[in-house]
């Protein structure tokens, strides 16, 4: 049997769907230029996916039909030669096919193989989120702003061809740069894109990540029940109402915490999270009322604390809050836990407010964004900005 190559592209559902699909298609077509056969496909689940859900697209490539068929005989490749992550907040965890909970982003990556992340951060910052594993691997970064290239809009900022260039550097057995160049010239018909691919190819480097290096977090997961243990009639138990709860710092019971789904966590879609200034909050209740996921806990003081295991990062709270700079959506990649902000505020008010100020400054308050995604897409004024960052990369 010949050698099978599998490449996985992890992307933000809906927001990057077309970019991921284009990349995996392009890999197959570029590899075909050197006589390889291939198939490209995506995970099929929510389609259109939930906004921002970690989603995957695959390209598998082989020299002969039989080997390719062996690769197609499982829906999701179990062993990957390369993983590309199109949005660096995905480094906090992705979901697999027909499985619930979160998995490390390098779950199926073969030992010693390469994980490529599109990011403006450096490796140490990313490794605060990327989970540790028992085998070593390589981590490479393509400098860039997360590309909003999804179903309805396409930010053609050359992310696709830059990824191809990087892959050609890492896995020339799949496709050489010459094959990539041929593909771009024939199918995409853009010499500018060839240049971008070439730059990415020339500049791509990776570091070795040792076994055990990375985020020590134990990821959330659970076992699916046996058929005899399930309720019948396609029915599930509902949530109870929720009620008063013990304050995280004082222990006093009060406020209101809604009951939340124990098993289905939406926070994996987050690319941004709200940070709250509890000292300026006017307790108008609007954020709590309008949150589509009931993600706010009403504290005993009557303020509103985002429960970060429930928040999906849509940004409605920031939009609706009537108090200037009380709720601010900031870049999710700055954070490495889901701890309560109210608890931090109660513990040391001044420290919290200082933290809040510096966090907002550092974590880029999002001025122009859409649909709960960190960055706006496709607008002409943003493409040059993205290309600038890429050029410096």
């Amino acid at each position, binding site marked *: 049997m010949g050698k099978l190559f599998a490449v996985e592209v992890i992307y933000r559902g809906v927001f990057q769907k077309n970019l991921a699909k284009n990349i995996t298609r392009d890999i197959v077509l570029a590899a075909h230029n050197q006589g390889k056969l*291939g198939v490209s*496909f995506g995970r099929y689940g929510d389609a259109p996916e939930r906004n921002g859900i970690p989603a995957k697209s695959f390209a598998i490539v082989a020299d002969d039909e039989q080997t390719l068929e062996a690769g197609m*005989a*499982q829906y999701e490749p179990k062993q990957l030669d390369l993983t590309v992550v199109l949005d660096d907040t995905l480094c906090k965890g992705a979901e697999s096919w*027909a499985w619930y909970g979160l998995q490390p982003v390098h779950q199926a990556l073969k030992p010693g193989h390469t994980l490529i992340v599109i990011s403006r951060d450096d490796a140490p910052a990313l490794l605060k989120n990327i989970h540790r594993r028992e085998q070593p691997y390589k981590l490479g970064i393509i400098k860039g702003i997360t590309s909003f290239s999804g179903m309805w809009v396409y930010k053609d900022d050359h992310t696709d061809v830059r990824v191809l260039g990087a892959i050609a550097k890492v896995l020339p057995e799949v496709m050489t740069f010459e094959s990539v160049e041929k593909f771009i010239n024939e199918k995409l018909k853009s010499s500018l894109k060839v240049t971008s691919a070439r730059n990415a190819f020339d500049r791509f480097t990776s570091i070795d990540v040792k076994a055990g290096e990375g985020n020590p977090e134990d990821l959330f997961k659970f076992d699916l*029940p046996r058929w*005899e243990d399930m309720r019948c009639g396609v029915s599930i138990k509902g949530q109870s109402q929720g009620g008063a709860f013990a304050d995280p710092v004082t222990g006093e019971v009060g406020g209101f915490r809604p009951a939340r789904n124990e098993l289905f966590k939406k926070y994996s879609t987050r690319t941004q999270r709200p940070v709250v200034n509890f000292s300026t909050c006017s307790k108008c209740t609007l954020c709590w009322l309008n949150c589509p996921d009931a993600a706010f806990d009403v504290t005993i003081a009557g303020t509103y604390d985002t429960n970060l295991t429930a928040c999906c990062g849509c940004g409605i709270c920031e939009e609706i809050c009537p108090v200037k700079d009380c709720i601010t959506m900031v870049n999710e990649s700055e954070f490495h836990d889901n701890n309560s902000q109210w608890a931090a505020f109660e513990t040391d008010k001044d420290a919290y407010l200082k933290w809040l100020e510096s966090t907002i400054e550092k974590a880029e308050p999002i001025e122009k964004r859409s649909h709960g995604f960190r960055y706006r897409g496709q607008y002409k004024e943003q493409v040059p900005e993205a290309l600038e960052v890429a050029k410096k990369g």
Partner: protein
Amino acid sequence: MPTLTIPVEEKEIKKPLEQEALITGAEAIAIACKLANVDVVTAYPIRPYDTVMQYISQLVADGEMDCEYIVAEGEHSQFEIVKHASACGARVFCGSSGVGWMYAMEALTVTPALRIPMIAMVGNRALDDPGAFGVEHNDALAVRDLGWMLTWVDSAQEALDTALIAYRVAEDHRMFVPLAISCDGAFLTHSQALVQIPSQEQVNKFLPRYNRGDLLLHPDNVISVAPQANEDWVTEIRRQNYAVTEIACDVIREVYADFEKTFGRKYGNPFFEEYMTEDAEVVLLGMGTISTPVRVAIRKMREEGKKVGFVRLRWFRPFAGPEIAKCLERFKAIGVIDRDFSFGSPNLSGVVATEVRSAMYTGSKTRPPVIGFIGGLGGREITVPDVEKTAEIVFDAAKGNAQPLTQWIGLRG
């Protein structure tokens, strides 16, 4: 049937297609519709069929395909519209999945009786509730008694070829019944593979114009279609559809032979494909994309010295009973993998297992055990290890050991 001359304008051939393309099973069928010069397409979105509707709309929007494209307000209307368009002489294409297909049931039941050769793509999807989008064959199988032709394909290439074959078979004057091409949801509809696309010239040679003859609804041909009937008429009307089923296999054989001559691609036996069956002791049988993990598992088992083969059924209606029985009678045991269920059936087996047993009861010289397996429902994978376990059970039955006649693959429990 006597023919009627209908004045028709020649359609200009727009933009020639690439010879080889990386496309999904759904896109392959859309391209076949373009090549077949379909006149009317009705659409209503439901996953996973809706990708074919999207691809066709793209072709129409880009000026590459000239047809009426109507988005109905539901599948019931969707199928009614093409039924009527076909009755007026339009070559039509339609499709749905799962409960969408069920929603069209009133339209689906009458198209065979009215002799409407519509081609439908069923993106096989679990009937929901429970609301899963993944593959299950019960949607297409729901019309198996009504006079629809049913075929399952397992690759994008086969999807394109079969769509062209479908128009030729369905519009043959001896047939004139609807035909549904089933494509496993996600595994075939949504994954992209390299496909050879034939030229328009080849397709023009292969597909004559749709000619409804004396059944055409037209002011110059004064007929009434679907009047009220009573007990004096229904039996004979059903007997007419029965006559179609008596010759359907012959027509299919003819068309495949002509396909091979025109396009150069060999499908051999149209009704089923045999894989490594020559010296097999046991075989597995199934439909659709299950063929991929099965073939891979069989190659693996062959290396271990296990003599197992696979029969992939292409045509479910007509069911080539005598041929299937003759093929299967030489094996020591057969394992039928149903990607469907048939609650309350004899031995509680799935649809295909029940039909295979029925065919063997009358057509086979031997009585090997036929073990029914149910698996892969709602889009769950059937993995290579699943297939190996299944084969082990069938080998055990071949030795003469008692095995339950219906078993579940990959069940949690």
